[in-house]
């Protein structure tokens, strides 16, 4: 690629991120008291590198 540089390629990850366990912190409990997920990104499963809970496990 000459004219485009891929900095973050999330093409493959999208599938994995669909089914959350909803155990993470609710947004307004963070610093800003607004709902946005920028700055409020702690996925509890992240450390264990288990990003999602599969749908059938929910």
């Amino acid at each position, binding site marked *: 690629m000459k004219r485009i*540089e891929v900095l973050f390629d*999330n*093409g493959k990850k999208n599938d994995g991120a*669909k089914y959350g366990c909803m155990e993470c912190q609710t947004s*307004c*409990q963070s610093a800003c*008291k*607004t709902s946005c997920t920028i700055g409020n*990104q702690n996925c509890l499963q992240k450390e264990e590198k288990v990003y999602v809970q599969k749908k059938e496990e929910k």
Partner: protein
Amino acid sequence: MLHTFKFSHRGELRYYLFESENGSLLEIERPVFLYLKNGNGELTQEEKAELDSLDGAVVKEIADELNELKERGIIGVEEERIDIKKSGFIKSLCLNVCHDCNLRCAYCFAAQGTYETENGKQNAESATCNKGGTAREKGNSESLSCGKNEREKSEPADEKTKYKNADEKYMSLPTAKAAVDFLVKASGPRRNLEIDFFGGEPLMNFGVVKAVVDYARQKCKENGKNIAFTMTTNALLLNKKTAGYLDENMDNVVISIDGRREVHDALRKTAGGAGSFDRVLKNALEFRDIRGEKKYYVRGTYTGRNPDFGEDVLFLNDCGFDRISVEPVVLPEDDPLALRLSDAEKIKSEYERFASEYLERRKTAKRFDFFHFMIDLDKGPCVYKRLNGCGAGDEYAAVTPSGDIYPCHQFIGKPEFLMGNVIEGGGVDSAVQEKFQRSTVYTKDKCGECFAKYFCSGGCAANSVTYERDINKTNALYCAVMRKRLELSLAIRAAEKKRGG
């Protein structure tokens, strides 16, 4: 959905392409930027002329590269709508342990801590008095008057409004315990629970805070759950004892300070009308020192008075804070402090200016985190969370000193949003809860077509009600600010990645 944008840093203009469906971020050359913009019919005449002057081989190259990226699934991703069913398990409570405050901030959505509104009046007579903070420490005794008895005396007949005249200003321990019991039960299968001590000023009811922390820990242990505590405080009552306690027991402490002395003191005054800056800064710095690596934030509010709010962020950083959040005020348009749509361009350029300085500081010993510029493109929240947003009224609720339950702290005092009462039991009003459960990024009027949707999560419902009187309507100023913050977060992330960060 593809979104192009640019960011100028130290005289250098860079162009970006963002695929909102999967969060891929690409840096593009200017001709690619023009090519994509042209596809959306967004070019000025000069830009169009510039694009037209490009060599045909260059245009082909651009088209080929974009096609390749599409084939690789990096861009041009179709939206796949997910059937999200909200659970209704409340796992997070904002516990308003005190509807009294030792400050009288001019912009307070809680009416100087009292939450007095036209519809849902708290006890106005005593609301303005200052109970003197830690005097309430004694209030952790079980023998304190129980909210229920007082309610029985004043309960109006109308079923829907039966809790709204509750006049307690300080949450009693029995009420606080009932709130914990409610949370444990309402959380169903959720294991990770949260309580945010909020107010008014929560340290004015410190005794109850301590007692409820112990109680919640014990209850959660018995029920196989974890609990995390947060406190949002104005820092006036932080001293060795309270700070030590918060440091030991709170997972996050959010300290309210607006920035430069003149900005802070103009609006965050004591009941006597004096500025609070000196005391707040001193206490906040002492707290930061004992806090070490543990989580805290200093959090400010900017208003129409300080459109140069970036200076306040940098000032807080100069003072020695390294976790900072500054938010636009939420006030009706006719308020003299309100931010208006006509301020949008000014606000956006201030974020831009400040983002550039932020990038520079992050290379130095003054490195700090600004809440709204921290973005994780590798593994952010799952799509469920992105579509759900804050969870207000669904998995998050606020409890008043008298035990009334509302969708969140900003809905307190609005009788149409009253959901129930923790002492009375009986769960929550399913009609109110359903209203919030039905509201997602998909149901909000403008979000479906917005590149920011998976990061903004559809915005703040309370904000929508304040400005648009409807939780499913978006507010143009809020959206403009949110989109700009997202673009800047992406540009900062891109720059840091290229630096090797």
